[in-house]
């Protein structure tokens, strides 16, 4: 069965290829079937292989399809490596991917470039699978860049609006900055180990580098650079909100569920190196913590439904980074999976709303949709609850609680990280329910014209179920103590040691987390559902609040900062040098020759006596030279 491994990425690729070549001539149904079907079969194969994997419990399956190239002992293969970690990712990618494909068939039904959309989506799924299944870092890099390309293509899907194109370009370039760091990391790894095979590196790294060695830290930071770029973390997060220019299923699949978590995958995949680099671990945790706060605050102020979700994604990935940073590997991955479910769900719901309201994305134009779109409302509510981590019933609670706990009690955790995460959880609850209240409650402002069809609703329901049920496979040890998920990951990701002194009081912190979430919901209710009191109003209207809101709204000014620091100087430099200053050196030489020519031409005056003078001068010069000693 594991021989079918190669089919998992190959099928979406094949679908993409067919769609690129013949898509324009195919009927729409066929396009949709081909697009969703190829991913669906991949999902099925994943299930089959997954069952076999779970029952046999090998450490991993490896399948080499061919040797990519072989130069001076550098022999990366087109080879797939399936272990528990990749299994989780493959599962999420294929299943969520399949659901979103199905959903898209409805969502994009009126689009002209139906085939192009599915081709890109399939290409994306294939690349993403390549990324998570790669057995060496170079192949991973292939997938890594491949998903970047698809992200570019899909953000700019509605290419006729130049702004979308620019957003797509921004996404590509900023992630490329991170990729560059990652590439340099690969160079070092190759130089040190003579291979880029992940397993080989991971097994040799501890022998080569002592803990905290400079090289390990350097490599870890470089890989982190790549991860940060892809996952929209500080300082390379600015592309992700703009990426919402793409169709909503794209946002759901690429910019929420899968691609943006590639950074998480990368760090988890190379956990051994990070374990060797405590400084990098700390950096991961801090980046995560800071990002989740900044993005959360920004999400509070946004009015574009998709932008709120985008910032929320950044923030949630911040949690994952935080988890990875404190060494809670499986907690991070767990949150990734749960996040994939509920965030995809939220995006798809948002998509349903947007299409229902004629591509209206501004929340201020929404309201009262609870009645008009009941299914969407309920599923959205489930997703929102999960995002806000409402205690006990939602999957989000279980995954986030774990992170909070390890941020404090893990051996690398500390109070500050915990506090950041806790505040983040609070903010999350507020902006999530702000969204719910503004969108679904209050009076209806826009008429619903396009209620979603079955194709769109079914994936919503399935994802909603997953957003609740998903959490029950991993429960805290003082509460049913179910560790299916972390057991699965055990061979790949090291467990985390807990500081025993705090360990006693875990329940207190769980309660605190739950309380914070509930308070957040309540606050959102106060501010955005109920009529505001004068006091609340005065807070909201105070100039300080306005300034903060403005600052947060702009994403903490990062765009402006980068604009002035990098983009403008680059464009300025490029533009003033458009005609290539070096060229003028050569033109100057030519001009010099011309002016000499002009001067010399004067000597050819046509007057005979002048010529004679020349002869005489020559004679004098010659005599001088020959007679001087």
């Amino acid at each position, binding site marked *: 069965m594991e021989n079918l491994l190669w089919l998992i990425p190959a099928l979406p690729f094949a679908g993409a290829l067919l769609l690129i070549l013949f898509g324009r001539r195919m009927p729409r149904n066929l396009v949709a079937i081909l697009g969703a079907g190829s991913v669906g079969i991949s999902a099925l194969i994943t299930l089959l292989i997954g069952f076999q994997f779970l029952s046999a419990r090998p450490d991993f399956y490896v399948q080499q399809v061919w040797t990519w190239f072989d130069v001076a002992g550098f022999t990366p293969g087109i080879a797939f490596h399936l272990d528990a970690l990749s299994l989780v990712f493959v599962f999420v990618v294929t299943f969520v991917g399949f659901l979103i494909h199905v959903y898209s068939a409805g969502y994009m039904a009126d689009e002209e470039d139906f085939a192009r959309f599915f081709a890109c989506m399939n290409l994306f799924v294939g690349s993403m699978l390549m990324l998570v299944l790669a057995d060496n870092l170079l192949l991973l890099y292939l997938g890594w860049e491949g998903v970047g390309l698809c992200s570019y293509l899909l953000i700019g899907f509605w290419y006729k609006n130049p702004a979308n194109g620019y957003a797509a370009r921004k996404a590509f370039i900023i992630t490329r900055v991170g990729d560059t760091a990652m590439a340099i990391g690969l160079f070092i790894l190759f130089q040190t180990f003579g291979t880029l095979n992940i397993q080989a590196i991971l097994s040799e790294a501890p022998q080569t580098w002592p803990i905290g060695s400079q090289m390990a830290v350097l490599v870890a930071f470089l890989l982190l650079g790549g991860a940060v770029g892809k996952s929209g973390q500080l300082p390379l997060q600015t592309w992700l909100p703009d990426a919402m220019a793409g169709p909503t299923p794209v946002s759901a699949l690429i910019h929420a569920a899968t691609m943006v978590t590639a950074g998480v995958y990368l760090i988890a995949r190379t956990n051994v190196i990070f374990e060797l680099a405590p400084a990098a671990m700390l950096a991961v945790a801090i980046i995560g913590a800071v990002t989740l706060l900044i993005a959360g605050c920004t999400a509070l102020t946004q009015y574009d439904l998709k932008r709120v979700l985008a910032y929320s994604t950044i923030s949630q990935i911040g949690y994952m980074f935080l988890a990875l940073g404190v060494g809670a590997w499986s907690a991070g991955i767990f949150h990734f999976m749960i996040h994939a479910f509920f965030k995809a769900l939220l995006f798809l719901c948002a998509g349903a709303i947007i299409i229902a309201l004629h591509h209206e994305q501004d929340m201020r134009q929404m309201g009262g949709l609870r009645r008009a779109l009941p299914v969407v409302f309920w599923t959205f509510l489930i997703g929102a609850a999960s995002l806000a981590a409402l205690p006990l019933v939602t999957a989000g609670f279980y995954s986030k609680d774990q992170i909070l706990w390890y941020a404090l009690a893990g051996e690398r955790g500390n109070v500050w990280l915990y506090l950041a995460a806790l505040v983040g959880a609070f903010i999350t609850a507020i902006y999530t329910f702000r969204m719910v209240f503004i969108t679904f409650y209050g009076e209806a402002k826009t008429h619903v014209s396009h209620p979603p069809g079955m194709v769109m609703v079914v994936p919503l329901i399935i994802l909603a179920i997953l957003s609740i049920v998903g959490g029950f496979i991993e429960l805290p040890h003082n509460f049913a103590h179910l560790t299916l998920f972390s057991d699965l990951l055990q061979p790949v990701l090291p467990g985390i040691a807990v500081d025993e002194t705090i360990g006693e009081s875990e329940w207190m912190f769980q309660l605190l987390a739950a309380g914070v979430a509930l308070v957040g919901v309540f606050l959102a209710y106060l501010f955005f559902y109920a009529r505001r009191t004068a006091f609340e109003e005065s807070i909201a209207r105070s100039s300080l609040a306005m300034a903060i809101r403005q600052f947060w709204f702009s994403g903490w000014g990062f765009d402006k900062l980068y604009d002035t620091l990098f983009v403008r100087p680059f464009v300025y430099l490029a533009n003033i040098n458009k005609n290539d200053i070096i060229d003028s050196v050569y033109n100057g030489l030519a001009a010099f*020759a*011309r002016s000499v020519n002009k001067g010399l031409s004067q000597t050819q005056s046509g007057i005979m006596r002048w010529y004679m003078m020349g*002869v005489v001068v020559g004679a004098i010069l*010659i*005599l001088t*030279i020959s*007679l001087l000693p």
Partner: protein
Amino acid sequence: MSRNDLLYLMPLLVLAGGAILNMLLVAVKRTHKIMYVLTILVHIGALLALYNIKNITAYTVYPLFILDGLAVFNLGLILLTSLAVTLLSYAYFEQREERKEEYYILLLLATLGACVLVISRHFASFFLGLEVLSVSLYSLIAYLRTRERSDEAGIKYLILAAFSSAFLLFGMALVYAVSGTMEFSGIGNYLSSSRELDTLLLTGFGLMIVGIGFKLGVVPFHMWAPDVYQGAPAPVTAFIATVSKGGMVALLIRFFSQAGGYRYPDMLLIFTIIAIASMFAGNLLALRQKNIKRLLAYSSISHLGYLLVAFLAGNKLGVEAVSFYLVAYFITSLGAFGVVTILSDKDRDADKLRDYRGLLWRRPVTAAIFIAMLLSLAGIPLTAGFVGKFYLLAAGVNTQLWLLVVMLVINSVIGLYYYIKVIAVMFAQPNAKREPRKLLHPVFYLTSGSTMMVLALLLVWVGINPNGLMQLIHGLLDTFIAAR
């Protein structure tokens, strides 16, 4: 004079006799065609006579002449070139209503003068050869007397040439006064025996360089060149560019090596300065020149500069390089001026750049030949000019004249600009309406055309397979051992 002397001087005697015969013929009846054929026959006769003595080891006709490999080679070169000029001349002069017969007499005499230069080993023969050449040239340059430019060119050349001859003669006199001999080898012996150089002697050499430099047209004695090239009829220009300069180069090599000039750094310094100045002045002056004949004049100034590089290298390789380069340069110049000759009409020579506009589309073969010639001047492979330049560089590098060699390279680059400028003009779109000029019967162009074809083929052949020529030069120069 012994029988052998006569045998060895036979090429020159044939030329002289031919000139007299022509003269007599003119007196009897003026027929352009017969004169033309006779002149060709005289050239062939001289060449046959030369072929007869090709395997000599240096033979001295005491005291004036020496016939060695260098001499034979240059005689052959000059005779062939002169023959080519003759062949090109017919169509050119036929369409002009002047008295054209005397032209051939003068041409033969000028050739004779150049031949004398090439084989002389004595001031007297040097002077005689030079003057026979010069005086014939005065008339040749001003031959088309109805053209005002012709007269201007003629008078300029006359006064300046006489002026520089005076320098040359005065220099000779000083050298003679000090050394007591007028034979080159005798001067060499004197120089090698005397410990200290006399001021008068140095002055003499310096003044001689003025005279020689004038004839070579190198800086700063080059200023006559463009005016004379422009004013003279195109075939005569070709003759000046080739035979007149080539004869002087041969003489310079002989004089310099026999008199032992390579031993004196001052002399080398003077020639180095002259070489570099000629390259730069020639090329820079040509840069924006709109008149093809002037452009070629400037180009020839710089080419003489290149030639001096190999001359300064001095050893056998250097002399070989000079000889080879002369051949390449002769072919190329003849070809280039030949094209000008062919394209010229009754009233004026085709010397304006705009006359060549779109030539590649109007007259593709002529244009192709001209392009080949220009590329050869620029030293691009597949042409003789490339091998020649390669030879020069090899000689320079071999003697490690790095300064000169680098200057040569820089100047080749500057030179490229104006050569390809002419080429670019030729493949530009032709002007919309161009009056087809009144031309002679095609038969008249047959000889000119076939001469040009032969020259073009020769150019490419030497460019691709220079073996034969190199072996010939190598073999002939065995009898001439250059001293350095």
